[in-house]
């Protein structure tokens, strides 16, 4: 049983979230082998960037907080990785970020030539001084980035949104109108801050960081619900998804595919297979298919 997504064949509904284990072909392949239908590379930027100093990722128990800070070799310095990925036998999303509309466009155009199956633009990262989120909280700037990128790429475009947008449905609609082929929601929540009271220091070196994992699931579900109401393009729903039941919940909110990031921490790298199996068991117990439940929470009873 395979599924179709924007013209590509996937083995299941699971997507690896960007920034999690997306650093090399070999590890992406391992994620795919562990039950993930579609994997996303770590976001690629316009220039070499080390990201922030450590601590960058802290587990809070009900989720985690991170300010990795968009490290990237820069799109021009990834030849080995592209060569490795050229021989892949799994579907791939390349995630892209920039500090200006032009940068998004330049990086995306270059990356498109490397033939990933999809390009995702990250207009939603809270962990950088000037990249990402700043675009995704505003209708106009979101639209500008999407149109500029859409113009120069040859693969379907996914736009990754931030829950910090005052009206995420409205932003999604703007992206759809500008040519986006799918929406990915959500990026991390907040940002938040954790202060160590003994040293009176924020624990993250960047001080603030995005929240992910189980505690953000209600926000992810609400965002997907709002986006589903606003657009007709498919949605990759993610944010705190950890179990098969979580996956069912976000599909009922309107997701077509289900992304997983932090849950790799909580259930291991085979979380993708576990969630798929749990979803399928839940569905078959009730004689239902994914199509039956997609967006089901929108029906008025």
């Amino acid at each position, binding site marked *: 049983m395979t599924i179709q997504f924007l013209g590509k064949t996937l083995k299941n509904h699971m997507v690896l979230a960007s920034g999690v284990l997306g650093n090399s072909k070999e590890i992406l392949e391992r994620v795919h082998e562990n039950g993930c239908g579609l994997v996303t590379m770590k976001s690629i930027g316009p220039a070499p960037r080390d*990201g922030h100093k*450590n601590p960058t990722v802290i587990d*809070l128990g009900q989720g985690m907080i991170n300010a*990795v800070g968009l*490290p990237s070799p820069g799109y021009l310095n990834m030849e080995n990785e592209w060569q490795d990925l050229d021989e892949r036998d799994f579907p791939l999303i390349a995630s892209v970020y920039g500090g200006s509309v032009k940068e998004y466009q330049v990086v995306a155009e270059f990356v498109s030539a490397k033939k990933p199956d999809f390009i995702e633009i990250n207009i939603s990262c809270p962990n950088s001084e000037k990249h990402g989120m700043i675009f995704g909280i505003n209708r106009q700037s979101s639209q500008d980035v999407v149109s500029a990128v859409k113009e120069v790429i040859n693969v379907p475009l996914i736009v990754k949104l931030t829950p910090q947008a005052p009206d995420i449905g409205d932003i999604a609609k703007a992206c759809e109108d500008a040519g986006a082929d799918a929406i990915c929601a959500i990026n991390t929540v907040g940002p938040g801050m954790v202060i160590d009271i003994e040293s009176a*220091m924020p624990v993250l*070196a960047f001080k603030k960081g995005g929240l992910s994992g189980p505690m953000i699931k209600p926000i992810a579900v609400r965002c997907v619900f709002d986006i589903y109401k606003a657009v007709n393009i498919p949605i990759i729903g993610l944010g705190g998804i*950890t179990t098969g039941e979580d996956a069912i919940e976000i599909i009922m909110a309107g997701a077509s595919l289900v992304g997983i990031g932090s849950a790799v*921490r909580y259930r291991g790298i085979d979380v993708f297979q576990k969630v798929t199996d749990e979803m399928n068991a839940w569905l078959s117990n009730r004689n239902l298919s994914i199509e039956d439940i997609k967006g089901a929470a929108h029906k008025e009873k």
Partner: protein
Amino acid sequence: MMNTITDQKHIMLRVDEKRIEGTAFATLFFNYAMPFKPGQFVMVWIPGVDEKPYTICFHSKDRFAITIEAKGIFSQKAVSLNKGDLVGIRGPFGNGFDIQTDHTVAVVAGGCGMAPLAPLVEILDKNTTVIHGAKSKEYILYPDRFDTRRQFCTDDGSFGQKGLVTDLLEKAIASGRQFDMVYTCGPEIMMYHVFNLCETHHIPCQVSLERYMRCGFGVCGACVCGKQLVCKDGPVFGSGELREMNDFNTKALLKSGKDVELSQYFSWRCK
């Protein structure tokens, strides 16, 4: 399911004791009941500076320690910490060594690589073959720590035999000792040669690798080495994994995620 979620925020600990180990190392002791298997590591946060992984090099019921070799900005800061200074600790992380006490094993340490191996040696039989090398005398870590007899060697001959640990290991094998396992930690190139020697002689081997780390728990991907995550699948890897690990002794990711030759990786300095 949800009870597998563990809070891994820092515990804030004060340095209880600091031991200067020769000119190159310092060992910091903390009073805390840390769960532990030899080979596991902790993430060490110096508030306002940075956070880096360090092997637990000493462990008792209510105390543990890390040994730091002064290299770059962080480790220089770490060796200059004093009793009472506040440090954040997350962990323990990673899998430890797969310990086989009832076999004839060898332990091969290079420089600071003795740190994870010392608690292992303390568990193993007193007749275990321990080969311990370093650049020079000052880099021989814990010269007096345990009573298991060691064969020492240094690059410059300033302590023990002049030469490499692989020379001593080869000699031990040639002398007819049948090893069931070789444990090794040290510079990656040294471990690579130890591993190859073991392969030639069909001896299973366990090495402890290092890569740049962020999360320490298998999420961020900073520490990938081949298809393995050094923090979560390692840092100790066995022969089966090493055989498939193309990146072993060849490739590592910089902080930016750029993959570089190992020599470039090890000459890189944190800013």
